[in-house]
C-alpha cells in the first residue's frame, strides 16, 4: 500500500506543475523590429529580402537542412516561443510541424504560409489525392512573385508602422524576380527542345519544369519512406538512352547513388550520360557562396542545367 501511495504521489507532481501553467507565448516588446521565424532557407530568404531591417529574422532550418529531416534543438523552442510572426512554406512541406505552426495562429501569433496563399488552381495536385498539392512551388518564379506579394501584404498588415519599407522592398524584389524569370526563360530557351529534360533523384522540380517547358523525371517520390523499384530504374534508363540525354542531375540532399545507378544503366544500353552537377532543391547554398540567396540559387541551378544539357 505504501508503495502505491508513493508511486501515485510521484506522478502527481508533474501534473500539478502543469496545471498551474500560465500563457505560453512571452510578451512582445512594444517597439523595435518584429521577431519573425522562418522555417526553410528559401522562405527565410524571402522574409529577409522583403522584411529588411524591420524584421528580426531567425531561420529554423539552416543551409543544407532538408525540411524532411530537420531536427529541432533546444534553442529552437525559445525561438518558436518568442516569435511574433511565423513564416513557412506550407502545403505540408514542413511535415507534421505544419500542424503546430497552423495552431500557433490561433494563439495570437501571426502565421503566414506563403505557398498556401497561391491560387489552388495554379498548384500541381498530387496524383490520386486531389486535396493535396506539391509543395515545391518556389522554382516557378511567377508563383514565387505571388508569394512575395502575399508576404509583403501580410507584413504591411501585421506591422503597419513599417509599411512603406515592406512595400518598397517587396516591389523591388518582385521586379527582380520578373527579370530573373526572363533570364531563366531565355537560358532554357537556348536549349534544343529535345534536350529540355531534367532527370533528378526526387521530384522537387515539377513546378520549374511546368514554368519553363522542361520535362521533369524523378526516380523517387517526395516521401522519404518511398523506395524505387528495379523496373523504375530500367524505364528511366531506357528513356534517357532513347532521348540521348547528355546529363542527369544529383541533388545536394539526396545521396548520388540513385543517379549513379541510372548512369550505369544508361551506359549499359549504349547511351552516354554524365552527371551534370548538383542542384539545390529544398535548401539554399552555404552563406558566402554563389547560391546563398534565392536568386543566386536559381541562377546556379539554371547554369548547371543549361551547361550540362547544352553539351
Amino acid at each position, binding site marked *: 500500500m505504501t508503495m502505491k501511495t508513493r508511486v501515485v504521489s510521484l506522478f502527481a507532481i*508533474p501534473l500539478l506543475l502543469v496545471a498551474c501553467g500560465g500563457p505560453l507565448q512571452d510578451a512582445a516588446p512594444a517597439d523595435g523590429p518584429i521577431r519573425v521565424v522562418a522555417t526553410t532557407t528559401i522562405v527565410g530568404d524571402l522574409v529577409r529580402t522583403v522584411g529588411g531591417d524591420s524584421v528580426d529574422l531567425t531561420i529554423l532550418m539552416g543551409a543544407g537542412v532538408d525540411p524532411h529531416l530537420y531536427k529541432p534543438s*533546444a534553442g529552437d523552442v525559445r525561438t518558436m*516561443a518568442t516569435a511574433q510572426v511565423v513564416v513557412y512554406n506550407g502545403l505540408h512541406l514542413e511535415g507534421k510541424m505544419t500542424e*503546430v505552426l497552423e495552431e500557433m495562429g490561433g*494563439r495570437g501569433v501571426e502565421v503566414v504560409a506563403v505557398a498556401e496563399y497561391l491560387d489552388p488552381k495554379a498548384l500541381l495536385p*498530387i496524383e490520386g489525392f486531389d486535396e*493535396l498539392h506539391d509543395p515545391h512551388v518556389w522554382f516557378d518564379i511567377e508563383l514565387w512573385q505571388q508569394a512575395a506579394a502575399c508576404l509583403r501584404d501580410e507584413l504591411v498588415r501585421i506591422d503597419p508602422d513599417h509599411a512603406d519599407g515592406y512595400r518598397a522592398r517587396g516591389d523591388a524584389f518582385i521586379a527582380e524576380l520578373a527579370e530573373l524569370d526572363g533570364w531563366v526563360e531565355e537560358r532554357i530557351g537556348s536549349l534544343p527542345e529535345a534536350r529540355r529534360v531534367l532527370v533528378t533523384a526526387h521530384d522537387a522540380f515539377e513546378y520549374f519544369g511546368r514554368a519553363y517547358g522542361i520535362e521533369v523525371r524523378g526516380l523517387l517520390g517526395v516521401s522519404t*519512406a*518511398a523506395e524505387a523499384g528495379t523496373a523504375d530504374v530500367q524505364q528511366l534508363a531506357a528513356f534517357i538512352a532513347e532521348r540521348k540525354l547528355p546529363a542527369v542531375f544529383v541533388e545536394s540532399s539526396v545521396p548520388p547513388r540513385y543517379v549513379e545507378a541510372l548512369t550505369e544503366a544508361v551506359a549499359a544500353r549504349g547511351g552516354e550520360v554524365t552527371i551534370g552537377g548538383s542542384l539545390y532543391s529544398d535548401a539554399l547554398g552555404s552563406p558566402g557562396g554563389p547560391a546563398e540567396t534565392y536568386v543566386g540559387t536559381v541562377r546556379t541551378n539554371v547554369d548547371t542545367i543549361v551547361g550540362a544539357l547544352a553539351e
Partner: protein
Amino acid sequence: MTAELEILVIAMVTAVAAALPGAYLVLRRTAMVSDAISHAILPGIVVAFFLTEDLNSPLLLIAAAATGVLTVVLIEALIRSRLIPEDASIGIVFPALFSIGVILISRAASDVHLDTDSVLLGELAFAPFHRLTVVGVDLGPAALWSMGTILVLNVGLILLAWKELKLATVDSSLAALLGFQPVVVHYGLMTMVSVTAVGAFDAVGSILVVALMIAPPATAYLLAERLAPMVVVAAVVAAAGAALGWAFALALDVSIAGSIAAASGLLFVAAFLVAPRRGLLAQARRRQGQRLDFAVRMLVVHLFHHEGTPEASEECRVAGLHRHLGWSESWTRRVVGKAAELELVERNGEQVLPTADGRRLADDAVIGFGA
C-alpha cells in the same frame, strides 16, 4: 509556465509512462519490441491515410496504435510457437510489416509527404506548441494530456494486475497452472506497450521512446533486487534522465530528444559503474578490499590446515609460501605482514604458524562456509 518547462514536464511524464511497461519488456527479454513497433506501424498509417486522404486525421494515430498491437500479437504468436526464438521473431515481423508500408506508399502515394515521422508528431521540442483547447480555454499541451492519460492507465493496470503481471513475466507456466491466463496477461501487457509506444512516438519521437522503454528499467535492474522496487526505481530513473537530458539540451542548444536518450544512457553507465552491489566499481572494490582480507584469512586457513601434518615443514615455510598459495613473493610478504600485525600468525624460525586467534579464525571461517 514557459515552453521549456512544459517540455520538461512532458518528457518526465512520457519517461515514466514508457519505463513502466519497459520494466516488463526488459525482464521478458523482448526489449527490442519497442524498436520493432517504431518501424512496423507504417502500413497502418498508410492505409488510414488512403481512407481519409488527410495527413492530419486522428484516424492515422489510431491506425498506428492498432498496427502496433498487430505487431506485438504477431511477434508473440511466433514466440509462442516456440519454433523461432524471441529476437528472431521480432526480426522477422517488423521488416515484413514495414515493407508492406513502403510498397503501399511507393505504389500509390510516393508524392505525398507520407512517412512515420511526418504523420506522428514525433518531436518533443514542438510538443508545447500543440495544445489542447476546449471551448477556447487552453488546457495545456496535448502531449501532456495524452501521455498523462497513458501514464495513469499504465499505473492503474500495473497496480490492478500486479500479481498476474509478475507471474506472467517471471514464470508463465506456473501462472497457467495457478489458473491465470498468461496469454491474456501477455497480450494485455503487449497492448499496453504498443499503445504507450505509439502515444509516445507522437509526443516525443521514436528513438526517445526506445531509449526510455529500455534504459531506465535496465538501470533499475542493476539497482533493485525485486520486481516492485525495480519498477519504482525505473520510473524514478526515467524521470531523472528526462530532467538531466533536458538540462543538457538547454545548456548546449542541441536536440532535446537526443539529449534525453543520451542522458538515459549516461545514467545506465553510472549505475553500471557505481551501483552499490552490482556496479563495476563495487565489484572491483570488493575484490581489492577483499583481496588482502581474504588473503590473510586464506593464509591462516592454509597454515591451520597443514599444521601438524607431515608436509607442514614444507607448506608453512616462509620462503615457499608464495609458491603454495600461487601468489607473488611481494604479495605474500604483504599478507604475512598483515596477518602478523593482526596477531593471527607468528614466525617460528623458517616457518609461519597460526596463533591461537588464528586457529579460531580459521576454524570459524571453514565452519561458517559449510553451514
